[in-house]
């Protein structure tokens, strides 16, 4: 048996700031079975979704009017709890499941693009970098034990009292 690929997938998400108030985020999925595109626009400072469009250029599911289907997410604020709301609004039809997932990917992209702004301020040398991330945990204790880097025993949380 050769090791030729049975399946390959490429998912690309991009985010750009259109103007002071508007962020555009898109997700393109291309794999062996599907070629689809979803785009959202979100408005600052609330990060509420103001526009959405989607299309499936190649697929095996029955997905008439994807654009119309996705309009349900307009008004959703990108932030904590958004996945629950997006899932609740779009429902659980397997035909449209991938489109819903792509909306979520667009939203994650927006959050990561804003996270990048914070991370750009991190110093380059290890000692100062450690201090920078440690200060970040102190500022927002929800980061404590959020992942291996912020777990007890990590240098980044040394001396920080865990939430009671």
């Amino acid at each position: 048996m050769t090791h030729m690929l049975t399946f390959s997938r490429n998912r690309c998400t991009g985010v750009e700031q259109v103007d002071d108030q508007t962020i555009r985020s898109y997700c393109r999925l291309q794999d062996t079975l599907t070629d689809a595109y979803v785009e959202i626009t979100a408005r600052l400072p609330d990060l509420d979704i103001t526009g959405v469009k989607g299309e499936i250029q190649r697929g095996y599911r029955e997905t008439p009017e994807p654009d119309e289907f996705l309009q349900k997410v307009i008004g959703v604020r990108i932030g904590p709890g958004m996945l629950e709301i997006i899932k609740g609004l779009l429902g659980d039809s397997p035909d449209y499941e991938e489109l819903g997932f792509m909306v979520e990917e667009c939203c994650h992209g927006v959050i990561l693009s804003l996270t990048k702004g914070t991370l750009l301020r991190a110093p380059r040398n290890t000692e100062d970098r450690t201090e920078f991330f440690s200060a970040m945990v102190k500022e927002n204790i929800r980061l404590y034990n959020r992942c291996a880097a912020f777990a007890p025993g990590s240098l980044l949380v040394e001396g920080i009292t865990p939430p009671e």
Partner: protein
Amino acid sequence: MLNFSRNKLVSIARKDEDTLLVHGILDDVIYGLEVDATVRISDMTFLSVNGKWNRYTTPECPKALPFLREATGFCINDKNITQKLQKTVGRKGCRHFATILIECCRSVKEAVRIIQWEAIKADHPNLTFEEFVNGEPREASYDSAEEKASPPHIEVREKTVRKDMPDARDSGGQDKTSGGFVIDLHTHTFPASPCSSVSEDDLITEAKRISLDGICLADHNYVWPVSRVEDLIQKHGFPVFRGNEVTTDQGHMLVFGLEKEIRSGGLVKIEELREAVEEADGFMIVAHPFRGFLTFGVGQLGLTVEKAMERPFFKYVDAIEVMNGKVTEKENGFASEVSAALGLPVTGGSDAHEVSEVGLYATRFPDSIKNENDLLNALKSGKGSPLAFRKEKTMV
């Protein structure tokens, strides 16, 4: 100019009749990482999972790698596979590794569809992939799909607990230094709230130990049956009230006096919930209205009090939770500023999901509260005031 980009690539090859080799790459502006996994086709389980970092942010990120192995044995067809990966690989290790593994799982499902179709096609050469898929049982797609099989709806439950409750202060509980009746209005128990890890008994025991006057079980989209709560009151000799944290299209709302339940996994429009609360003569509080992000605050987005006041949900609520144990002090402070500007009553609650979190925040009412009607009246009076209960208690 592109501000952020992320590429996820998954390649799947067949190692032998029953084994897939899966290679996943996540490469974005911030992180670069790869995973290699093997999956047994017959039961869709991970046989091995390994990974490596190419780029990361903190000096401690490499500590995430050993946790990848904890995904070994996970079944990709498990309806909770996403949550399991987020809880193990994501929370213990790194959520970006969980992200690429979730993408790998989604891809494996597609690859196996192709494999199954090709196997059947040997006997049915004219069967198209679309025909094959449409003949499949319609599997639920989202993890919670099984629970969401029925549309969200509001269901009538039992009547209110009206019997007078024991006063915690009569049974050894100590009065607060500042007086009043202090209730933690926002707590979660397991299994009613799957995200919680504490039983109702442990929660109540702790509330009693730290000298709260009462506790409110406000599980997600779940109304506690009256009989169960009455049993708890009798068992612990402690006031236990009922609330419900309902997920709406505008976020989480704490509702009181609503003898109806939003079925788990459902989502209700805030207007509909408001209507139901009004019909029941209940009370509705927006929970943690400015719960923000992990690495940046709402202030960095340029959110002002004036702008925040325009959020649509404020039109539908009776009060604002301005002290919540799951958000930062800044976010709580911002909620206070907005509530003051709006002139809406305020409350506090721990949002406890662990025993140690009970009573972090609570609400003090001026008079004793003996039953759920009293609680509703107290909430409606607008005389409740939030307090950092544990902190204040320590300082006394």
